């Protein structure tokens, strides 16, 4: 019985560690979806780009991924801004269909493009930190890279939250999320702010990718699973709520790990989707959101 409690606790802790990364991915999606109502099916593909960027920096310039992720974030910001200006802006007033379709197309281009350039092979990096496990008593063991990325994501998440709540740009974002036309009447350059927030959303996802790289592996379709998880997180946390997405990411990580522990790893993804459907049916505004669905 005691062993079972420790097992569950271990699973919860591991879930929080994984969930922190989910939180960043979800917050990026919350910025994009919540503010711009863009259904970004390319979210995971961009995350994969962040992973590749960090990988290349590690392999060629020996930049530690725990610094490299910042570079990945910067690159993804620029890419996001450019993608918005170049492609998404043109269909900003068209239907959701078209956005979904466009981001799907972009996702295919990115994924296949990376495969053509880098090949379909799996890559993995090896840093000494991977072998270190922090032991909390005889029953709990936490892997060091995950702890480090947890610490970093807490800082990132807090930063993003404060930015959205306190800064001028953040206020502009929230204004647009509430009512686009009114916001433009208030003198906000809607297009520019949206481009910036798309860039920021992708920067977040790129950072998450960089942090994930040491503990995961790299291949062209590595990001795909995260696109759908990001949607689940955003829905769970509540539309347009960046803070909500952070909490929801943590919750999802814990739910997945507990599912793995009690039912088996193969059901974890199904539980993600069931959570998604339950939230949409029973509490569409999510845990913290206020927008109508």
């Amino acid at each position, binding site marked *: 019985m005691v062993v079972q409690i420790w097992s569950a606790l271990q699973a919860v802790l591991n879930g929080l560690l994984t969930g922190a990364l989910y939180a960043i991915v979800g917050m990026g999606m919350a910025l994009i979806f919540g503010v711009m*109502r863009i259904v970004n099916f390319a979210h995971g593909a961009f995350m994969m780009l962040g992973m590749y960027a960090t990988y290349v920096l590690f392999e060629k310039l020996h930049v530690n991924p725990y610094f490299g992720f910042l570079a990945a974030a910067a690159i993804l910001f620029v890419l996001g801004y450019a993608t918005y200006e170049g492609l998404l802006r043109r*269909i900003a007033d068209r239907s959701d269909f078209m956005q979904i379709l466009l981001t799907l197309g*972009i996702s295919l281009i990115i*994924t*296949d*493009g990376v495969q053509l350039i880098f090949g379909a092979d799996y890559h993995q990096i090896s840093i000494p930190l991977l072998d270190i496990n922090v032991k909390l008593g005889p029953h709990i063991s936490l892997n060091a890279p995950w702890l480090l990325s947890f610490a970093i994501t807490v800082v990132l998440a807090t930063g993003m939250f404060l930015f959205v709540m306190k800064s001028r740009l953040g206020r502009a974002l929230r204004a647009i999320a509430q009512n686009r036309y009114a916001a433009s009447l208030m003198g906000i350059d809607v297009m520019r702010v949206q481009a910036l927030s798309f860039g920021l959303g992708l920067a977040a996802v790129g950072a998450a990718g960089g942090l994930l790289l040491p503990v995961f592996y790299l291949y062209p379709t590595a990001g795909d699973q995260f696109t759908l998880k990001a*949607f689940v997180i955003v829905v769970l946390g509540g539309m347009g709520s960046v803070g909500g997405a952070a909490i929801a990411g943590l919750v999802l990580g814990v739910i997945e790990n507990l599912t793995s522990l009690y039912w088996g790893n193969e059901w974890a993804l*199904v539980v993600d989707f069931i959570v998604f*459907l339950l939230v949409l*049916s029973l509490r569409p505004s999510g845990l913290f959101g206020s927008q109508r669905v």
Partner: protein
Amino acid sequence: MTRQRTLIAVAAFALCMLVPLFVHQDYQLNVLFRLFLFAALSLAWNLVGGYAGQLSLGQAAFFGCGAYGLVLFNEKLGVPIPIAFALGVVIAVGAAFLIGRVAFRLRGPYFALSTIAFAEVLRISAKNLTSITGGDVGVQAPALFGSDPSRWFYWSAVLLTAAAFAITVWIARSRFGYWLQAIREDEDTALACGIDAAGTKLRALMISAALSAIGGGLYASLFYFIVPDQVLGLDISNQIAIAGMLGGAGTLTGPIVGAVLLESANELFKNLFHEAHLLIYGVLIVLVVLFLPEGIVGTLGRLWRRRTQRA
């Protein structure tokens, strides 16, 4: 439909049915089968995605229900083939009912995402419940046609496409279709006019599911063997929706055009571009969205209308 158009449709249908007189090889007939199958699936998608304006990205759920229904009822429970086939369709319609009840309360992107979620739940469950579905080890499908199967499958696919087309025409011109389009244009106003939005959308989804399930059963039998990723996968749902949008959602012939183009491109690119074919696919989608938002048929129709109006 005007008499002229009806004649063209019938002539085209007859032409397609005569093809096996000239084409004999299994490989070619199979390629054409896939073409017509996807045309039928896109037409089925179009009822919900085009006419009702609800982007469904989970059609694979119904397709897979049809496939697994036929295979499991026949292989595992010994039910005779025609009944197993019908049961697969019934299950798909049931799934549509369930999905619709939950998802149609949601608007726009939430609906699309929930259709994906449903299809994925089905796919992963099929993978995990190996004692029932055989999981990834797969199950063999019964043979629907004994001798010369490729021909019969081809004809079945053409018939299915014709049926889907006929249903689309009937819906488009009927009051039911009018309701669907009203919902698409402005659901709140439609509700205010007394249209039962939820029920109408649900019925459209159920018809769409039935057609897709028939396609699923045919596909399973032709390719002998099914695994969850093959018949319940996201890429099938995507391909169906993309074909519909490429050709023109909400038009009569758009999905057929879209499916034909996409499948032909697939076949061509497979040999010419190998690994790059997904990239080309993606570029194609981006170009169509940016420059041909109403799809090919939609854009052509609009240009034609403009020309005739000027005169």
